[in-house]
């Protein structure tokens, strides 16, 4: 199946509050970030505008995030289909 790339990222920070994550997300061109209620230091970095599906992986954004000293791990999110029943 064709892979759908998105502008959503799971980002694990070494440490940091919601405010720090929001700041980091803005610095990297995201709309904002939201902490996940489970896991340690996990944040959802999401785009500022209406999300679009992409044919190509956003490598530049990924690389920049991964190189940031505040970031432990970055996981780009693939898109997939879910249907209303």
């Amino acid at each position, binding site marked *: 199946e064709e892979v759908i790339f*998105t502008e959503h990222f799971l980002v694990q920070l070494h440490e940091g509050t919601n405010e720090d994550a929001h700041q980091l997300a803005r610095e990297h061109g995201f709309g904002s970030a*939201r902490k996940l209620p489970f896991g340690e230091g996990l944040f*959802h970095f999401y785009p500022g505008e209406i999300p*679009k*599906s992409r044919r190509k992986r956003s490598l530049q954004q990924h690389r920049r995030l991964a190189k940031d000293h505040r970031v432990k791990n970055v996981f780009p999110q693939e898109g*997939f*289909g879910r*249907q*209303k029943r």
Partner: protein
Amino acid sequence: GYREISNFDVNMSDPLFTKQWYLINTGQADGTPGLDLNVAEAWTMGFTGKGVTIAIMDDGIDYLHPDLASNYNAEASFDFSSNDPFPYPRYTDDWFNSHGTRCAGEVSAVSNNNICGVGVAYNSKVAGIRMLDQPFMTDIIEASSISHMPQVIDIYSASWGPTDDGKTVDGPRELTLQAMADGVNKGRGGKGSIYVWASGDGGSYDDCNCDGYASSMWTISINSAINDGRTALYDESCSSTLASTFSNGRKRNPEAGVATTDLYGNCTLRHSGTSAAAPEAAGVFALALEANPNLTWRDLQHLTVLTSKRNKLHDEVHQWRRNGVGLEFNHLFGYGVLDAGGMVKLAREWKTVPERFHCVAGSVQETQKIQSGNKLVLSITTDACQGKDNFVRYLEHVQAVITINASRRGDLNVNMTSPMGTKSILLSRRPRDDDAKVGFDKWPFMTTHTWGEDPRGTWLLEVGFQGEAPQSGVLKEWTLMLHGTQSAPYIDQVVRDYQSKLAMSKKEELEEELDEAVERSLKSLLSKN
């Protein structure tokens, strides 16, 4: 299951209440009287969902709707599609954005306000989680939704999933699985979040065991029955379905659908299909949680098994059968249709079931060939980890983790038989599934049909092909995983109805405990001599 409607004093002024046959079925819309969720009995006992919050994970809720507004829990709501706290439905490409609003009405529509009808749990709170309306789904949006405020939200209702086209095999990804595990372990102060899932609408061409959400042990998967007790056209074969609701009318009667709230303050008589199954069930579970807020996620599954009824549910293809401990089940309906009255009565005095254990009963890892016309039969003989800390004596869920490839995946049939002789169809034929590459990779097929059984002995797995053209395949793994309790789950429960499934199960447990005690004594005596 027939009861006199007049026994219950239910007076509702809402204009669509008399159309809501799934609440009280007096024979409306060519239905069969008595085929309903028996909510009147629960309401008469005073349980209407007070103090319980149900989240609808869908395309949002019209929270300004006058039949929903006063029951709307704004604090527990969020829009993960647009990243704001206001999950109001938005325009979508297909113009169908009333799905969540309809579900919300089935759970929590306000009673006696002269608007639309009433919800199953009309004094409960409903939260909106909008998460379906971006051009794609992501693991992180699902995980965020399913783990949203687990100390405030009691029940999460989902009427969506992987495409039910009869050829998709898909389920929750890693983060969502982690979120669900976190929810059942830590949600509701450790009693566990309740996830209710509509089991799918792919019909006889599909199998809900290929939907990893519906077939998860952590979700209560609900099927749909129609107002005269027959199966809905879209019902999927499924060994992981636990129970059913009345949520669809088959006949060409405009009033045979489900009456509920609709977008922009409207009402509808036409909500039907499997999507109504999950919210109706969530409403019934809300009544049970009000009756006993201490119920854990597993307690609710036990209560569902014990109180769901065969009633007049009829399936022409799959007969009703009894499992090894006498519990009657059907391959579409699970243990039957939910009975709200029965559930709250039992819930009130329910004592939390004993601790759950997990045992890997065995695994076949050698590659096995499968050919058309030559069924592969494998066996695993297990002591169910007896003598170890994780011994499982009374089954809840059983998983068969299978890796298999075939020249045509859709022609594969997989059946599993327990040591007590209960046969579950883990995978039925899916004629539209022509996959020849992916197969099933460590896919956790699940059955609820062996509930309460003793897992010790020999389990059989039968794998074959069904279809016109000859096919071949390879099974690479079958790992059998048992989940359940060491001690009898019902032995401490209070029996009020001696004809009930609880009474039967408790009697069975007592006899088995006695037999085993006698056996132990004899062995001890013999060894001394």
